[in-house]
């Protein structure tokens, strides 16, 4: 089964947040607290040896998605063709179990029901990249089949998130 995943190069990310806004524009979201993608600033150390990095995270479309397991209505499912985890708002009752299960803060609640990153799978089906990946000014964000990405990661510095992708599950 093909499993799509995002790749993220922390050395390239400048915290510009174009990815966040491009996603808001693609999905007509209000922004503010409701956003499918979030950029967090991480500061380590102190002057004169401080380091500032940024992390851009959306739904990771986990191999063993905890949101899917805990959803009581079956509103969340995983696509066979590409492993994208999608939510069906018309089946959602707003219980918030998914937000409790997700390590990445991906589920968003607007008007009481859950929506989240869907990997722009409609765009992908037309040969386009997800909106966030397309816009990234430094190519920090990428995507691909997880097997290919894992090979590439061995050559480049990346984030430990990828390794938890496949095993994220029961907690």
């Amino acid at each position, binding site marked *: 089964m093909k499993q799509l995943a995002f790749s993220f190069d922390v050395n390239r990310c400048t915290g*510009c947040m174009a990815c966040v806004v491009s996603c808001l*524009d*693609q999905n007509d979201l209000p922004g503010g607290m409701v956003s499918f993608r979030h950029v967090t600033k991480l500061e380590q150390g102190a*002057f004169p040896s401080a*380091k500032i990095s940024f992390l851009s995270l959306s739904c990771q479309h986990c191999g063993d998605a905890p949101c899917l397991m805990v959803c009581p209505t079956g509103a969340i499912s995983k696509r066979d063709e590409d492993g994208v985890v999608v939510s069906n708002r018309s089946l959602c009752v707003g219980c918030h179990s998914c937000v409790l299960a997700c390590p990445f803060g991906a589920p968003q609640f607007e008007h009481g029901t859950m929506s989240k990153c869907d990997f722009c799978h409609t765009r992908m089906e*037309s040969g*386009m990249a997800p*909106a966030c990946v*397309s816009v990234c000014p430094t*190519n920090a964000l990428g995507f691909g089949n997880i097997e290919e990405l894992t090979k590439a990661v061995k050559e480049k510095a990346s984030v430990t998130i990828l390794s938890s992708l496949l095993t994220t599950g029961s907690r």
Partner: protein
Amino acid sequence: MNNNPALSPEDIRMGKIPLKGSGIEVRKTICDICNPQSHCGIDAYVKDGVVIKVAGTKENPHSGGTLCSKGAASRQYIYNEDRIRTPLMRKGERGSEDFEPISWDQAFDIISSRLMQIKDETGPESVLFYAGYPKWMRPFLKRLAHSFGSPNYLSESSCCSAAQKLAQRLNYGVGTSPQPPKAKCLMVWSKNPFYSNTAVARKLMGVIEKGVKIIEVGPLMTPFSKHAEVHLRLRPGTSGALALGMANVIINEGLYDRDFVEKWTEGFDAYRAYVMAFSPSKAAEITGVSADLIEKAARLYATSKPAGLLTGSNPTVHHTNGITNHRLITALIGLTGNFDIPGGNYVKFPGYLYASNGLVTRQSEFSQSRPWEDMAPRVGQDTFPVWCKMEPEGQSMHIPFQIQSKKPYPIKAMLAFGLNYRMWPGSDSMRKSLKKLDFLVDVDLFMTDTAKLADIVLPACSSFERSELKFYSAPYVIWTQPAIEPLGEARSDNEIISDLARRIAPEDGLLSSGHEACVDWILEPTGMTLSELKKYPGGYPLKDVPQPPFKKYEDGGFKTPTGKMEFTSKILEEFGLDPLPRYVEPRLSPVSTPVIYKDYPLILTTGARLPMFVHSRTFRIPWLKGLRPDPMVDINPKDAKERGLSPGDPVALSTPRGLIRVKANPTELVPPGVVNMFHAYPEADVNTLIEPDYLDPISGYPGFKALLCQVKRLSE
């Protein structure tokens, strides 16, 4: 893109995919929210005449399909509820925000009759023609001013990148640009293109990953910092001393280009003698950067062949000692033999509207429609004579002073495009001065706080709603086509200028004949015509454009009075100023004003870029304001702890002039002892904390980046 029958119409609509039958069309335009060095190509997805999504234009070789957060938020910019829909005329008191809609004809009638009347009474020079942002109408506005008879075309260049170019021109006669892909080492001096010029971010990141060595100079941390070999986090305002310290190492260790210095420079002996006083430890004392870091940086820059110097547009010249600092910094280029060589700092031909791609146009000729000697002296000419000699415009920072003094002549009216009074130091004072004008016209997209002070407000088109000629250095040219109809009765700035020209400068046939005719005239030497460019709405890649050769000075010398690179400036000498760039402290600093420093023990720097804002333009965009909702002062965690501050605590940021209420943002972005505050917030305008005359004496630029302040917790 493939035609995918599996997609339902609903899917397409939801994914906004512009397939056949979806009703979505991709129209090419450019974003002009920030500066001309970006202006990323935009694919506007239009359905039923409305933009439903934006993306970057992949085939634009400058931006390559990228956008920053601001460009990505274009829909909330162009469709913002603050957009002005009709011309407006003031009904109530100035500043009361009481306007009534009028027609364009009425507006033009009122404007032309008032301006002609004022011209009659107090001379054409008493009318100012001002350009803020965007910059695309500038050559046309300047021409309108001079054709009307006024020398007073002024712009936001009075505190933007012109001064750093001026400083280089005092040294070399021209400005330069580095060539990062060809350099072995890049010295980045107070520049963060990842936030200020996102279009080049991808290419720059590529260059970094290829292994170019980065020397970063600047008090703040930037996305460069983790890639830099060395980061010199100097005390704000001491760049000149740092450059002198580096020159000291370079000269003493024999790392300078003797050949170039002997053959092509003037005043080296005086310079060298002065440099000797700035040993690395002396420079360390002044700047706060350790001597061995200074030595390391100097050696790396001088021995990397070639090396480029990339300076920010403004940070080094936004100081009361700015021109001197920048002369000293850029002198290092020539000193190390990196002037106008491949991979060094290259001299381009002047282009069009701040972008150069090798094509030479008639922009200057077009805009200078009347010689200076035929007009009154410009605003700022007596106070900033060097600025006026080197720049073809007035010095805007002098406007409030002349409005108040009425000397050498009164200022009665202003025709402004994108004016923002908060740009001025002591902005509350600029606001008062504007209110004293007899007549103020402001053209803008939005009902800004400045527009609220005007007598007539005219609605302008965004870049999506009009055409413009755009040059990229890539090399690439676009004559953009409107992606959507203008909102309400908005009009293109240049159409407004041509309409006004017909009424207030009718003898200027060219300007009166309209925007396109003028553009064709400007383009004439290039051989390109608009009718040809119109065939390429997404842009036209220029082929075989001859680029200027390197070491142009070898053929005819430098464009300076002596024909050489001038360590000591003849032009300054002519104006009775010190030809040698002697380092002085900022007018407010721990060293120059120790008494003030006791009560205001933090150095305040303002105006550093944030990725989601550019000056005042994007606070009204909810997607962007939501990324950083509150005005915050960046303060080092050590300084925050001393003051008992947690993230988000309400604080008073104060200087001897005033106080603003903001929130504390403890962060390692700033070093201990320095705080950073973003400008232009209506609710917390840091420029009210700066004296209106806190200016560089040569350029007239405000000292935005070295002030003294205190930060104290506010009880709620």
